[in-house]
């Protein structure tokens, strides 16, 4: 009996040990931690750029500094492997923050580059994806963020703060994968450009690259991206400076803060053709009035402001819709996806020709703006002689 038990125990232990999957003993100091991965393209080869951290010192004087390595290669993974060779250390991906693609890669189709990231079991799905605008990936990685230690950490910090910054829609790899593989939605990626800041180039995240399928078709600037944020319902906080007419006193720039934003997109079928109804309700706070002689305790004035805001945003949304519908023919709002979900019958009918229907899809737009926070704790400042 004892012998049988021992045999069972041995077999169980062996099964547990041997069939547990593959992993390996590594020494942590032999790893080169990859913070950022970038792909650029010089046909026919890809240029793979890694931002790594160089740790040195040991003992009590450990130092950490970012290091950018690049190589050209036939594919992303082989480039990464080649860079391990250059660094003399094994590239370790799970701590990567960002994945950057140049405009050319995006225009030729991001699938080649993203596929490795999605497939790799080392790179996490939470990596932020960006497209660089008017600069190469290597230039971005070699720029100097003013506070953060490395560019990747800088971009990570910006992405996490999106709700307070606005101007772009951050996207992680797993979200991009979903958008790419879904029907009736075109992915949008945040863009990075470089600005001069006291003699140094600083990466700034602003604007959006619009994709059609996996190919980039055009840019949206920061303001357009804000409107896109509103329509996608990802806006948390954002400031808008709008020239507002105050009674007979003329126009004054007033800063409003968005404090709430509900968007409702309804796919419709009208006269046998697809259409959409967008209903946007926004709540505003008044952030800064400046010299404007406005009195928010006067309901008439408030009503006038709300009407002006609604008109302003309606116009801007129309402009954006025109751009994505006519210029790009890219369904960035995922109206097709909504059709598929809510009106599957109609989608079966239109789905295959969505590219044809989308550019002149009639959109009913209803925008409601409410000023809910007047920021009034006392009467506004008035300078008297």
């Amino acid at each position: 009996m004892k012998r049988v038990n021992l045999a069972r125990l041995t077999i169980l232990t062996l099964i547990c040990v041997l069939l547990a999957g593959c992993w390996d003993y590594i020494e942590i100091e032999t790893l080169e931690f990859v913070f950022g991965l970038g792909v650029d393209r010089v046909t026919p080869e890809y240029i793979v750029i890694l931002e790594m951290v160089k740790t040195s010192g040991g003992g009590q004087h450990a130092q950490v500094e970012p290091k950018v390595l690049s190589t050209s290669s036939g594919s992303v993974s082989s480039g990464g492997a080649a860079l391990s060779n250059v660094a003399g250390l094994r590239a370790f991906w799970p701590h990567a923050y960002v994945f950057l693609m140049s405009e050319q890669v995006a225009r030729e189709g991001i699938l080649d580059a993203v596929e490795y990231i999605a497939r790799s079991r080392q790179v996490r799905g939470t990596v932020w994806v960006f497209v660089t605008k008017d600069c190469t990936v290597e230039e971005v990685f070699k720029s100097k963020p003013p506070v953060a230690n490395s560019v990747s950490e800088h971009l990570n910090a910006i992405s996490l703060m999106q709700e307070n910054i606005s101007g772009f829609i951050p996207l992680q790899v797993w979200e991009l994968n979903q958008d790419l593989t879904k029907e009736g939605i075109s992915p949008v990626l945040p863009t990075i450009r470089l600005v001069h800041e006291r003699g140094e180039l600083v990466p700034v995240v602003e604007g959006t690259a619009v994709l059609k399928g996996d190919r980039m078709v055009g840019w949206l600037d920061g303001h357009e991206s804000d409107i896109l944020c509103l329509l996608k319902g990802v806006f948390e906080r954002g400031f808008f400076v709008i020239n507002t007419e105050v009674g007979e006193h003329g126009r004054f720039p007033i800063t409003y803060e968005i404090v709430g934003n509900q968007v409702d997109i309804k796919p419709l079928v009208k006269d046998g053709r697809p259409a959409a109804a967008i209903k946007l309700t926004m709540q505003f706070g008044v952030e800064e009035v400046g010299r404007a002689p406005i009195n928010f305790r006067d309901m008439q004035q408030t009503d006038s402001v709300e009407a002006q805001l609604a008109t302003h945003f309606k116009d801007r949304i129309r402009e954006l819709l025109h751009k994505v519908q006519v210029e790009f023919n890219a369904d960035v709002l995922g109206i097709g996806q909504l059709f598929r979900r809510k009106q599957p019958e109609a989608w079966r009918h239109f789905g295959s020709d969505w590219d044809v229907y989308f550019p002149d899809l009639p959109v009913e737009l209803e925008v409601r703006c409410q000023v809910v926070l007047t920021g009034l704790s006392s009467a506004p400042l008035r300078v008297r002689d």
Partner: protein
Amino acid sequence: MFFWKHTKKGEPQPRGLDDISPSLRTNLHWLKEDIFVHDQAIAYRGFKTSDPHPRECVLIYADNMVKHEYLSQFVLRPMMRSSLPKHLRGEELAHYAAERILESDGAEFITRYSEIGDKLMDGVGVILIDGCPVAVVVDAQGWAKRAVTEPPSESVVRGPRQGFSEDLGVNISLVRLRLSSPNFKTRFLHVGTQSKTRVAILYLDNVTSMELVEEVERRIKAIDIDAVLDSGYIQELIQDSPYSPFPTIGQTERPDVVAAKVLEGRVAVLVDGSPFALTMPYLLVEAFQANEDYYNHWITATFHRLVRYISFFVTTATPAIYIALISYHPQLIPTNLVISISAARKNVPFPGIVEVIAMGLVFEILREGGVRLPRPIGQAISIVGAIVLGDAAVSASLVSAPMIIVVGLTGVAGFVVPSLNDLAVLIRLSLVLLAAALGLYGFVFGVIAFLLLLSSMESFGVPYLSTMTTLVPQDLKDTVVRVPWWQMVLRPRYLASKDRQRLQGQAGRTDR
């Protein structure tokens, strides 16, 4: 006089069986030449009772085991000043002396040589009177005793400061003082063919299950060993699961703890010569209970108990988890931390597992070195340990700084649960080896193995994990939490107590 006049040339009579002879000379001969031969520590003080009928007597005692002034004042002086009536014969002499002359409170009569041998070692005086085949034993114990002081192994901030000493009688009295009821019972046994050590079994008649008492007694009686020098002998000889490193018999130096355990229906065993009392059955929860828990506010007590559980986990698991993370799963460490660990480990020549084991060993060496050293030298050890082995090793890149933190944390946390500290070292080492071989997977394996071991153990018929694996409120009241006293209505169920009711009156029974 009449008896030995007939012997040839005053030669001692044959010893016979074991009985004490009426002849003083014979007795002395056999004692000196046979029973206590070559033992120079036995004193024979010969004297005579006073006139008109002086009779030869001898007072025998073991040197330094008796109070000498006591023997001189209350035994020798009265004996020498009084006279034994002439008509007394044989045993009457001894009885007369005990009843009318000796001023000692304890007096016994013995008739065998072997008893003299046994008794003398307990520190008594034995009086042999010529012509009397009975020896009188007078109590005069007077060896050096340690005072009742605070036990060094279990000091408290709040609570009684008395601790057991090496004297069994004193120790029993310390417990009896706390449980002054006729239900408190003491049974005595003698263990050890050579040492004849007195062992006392303590229990409460109206609470403790008699089966438990009988079982304890049976196990102790079954011990066949030459000597018992500490209660540790008995602990190891009678405990369940002897091959498991987990203790199944509790030990304490404090009478208040013994009283509390006995009140819960446990049995305590005190061993002469050892300040450590044994309590049984012993469950795993008890390792995390401290007597101060019951003297302090129940909320703070509960918090401290929680700290003890966490510390035990920390001390056993930290190095293993550290090794698993840095060697197998660096992706699970937060990015900033992984970078700084990596930077700290640059230039360190040894792999993580070697570092962990070496530093753990160094810690144990320092501890072992410090334990048995006099205080002043012990401090030198800690200075050497802290500065030379800690700081210098890091500066010289022999060890990485995070490793020092891990080892330090492990070591300090180990002292929080002192009763399991020695054991924690073994658990830690086995988990480290498993983690080094298989990563977190191996670590989890090890934890499961220990849980299996624990759940297979029992102590005196009580499952070792009792009260930790139940959801009955009255069983859980004294495990991770220490509920207020007014809610500890019942005594622990698992001890099968006769009388479970602990609180009477306003609290009443609150559960089944």
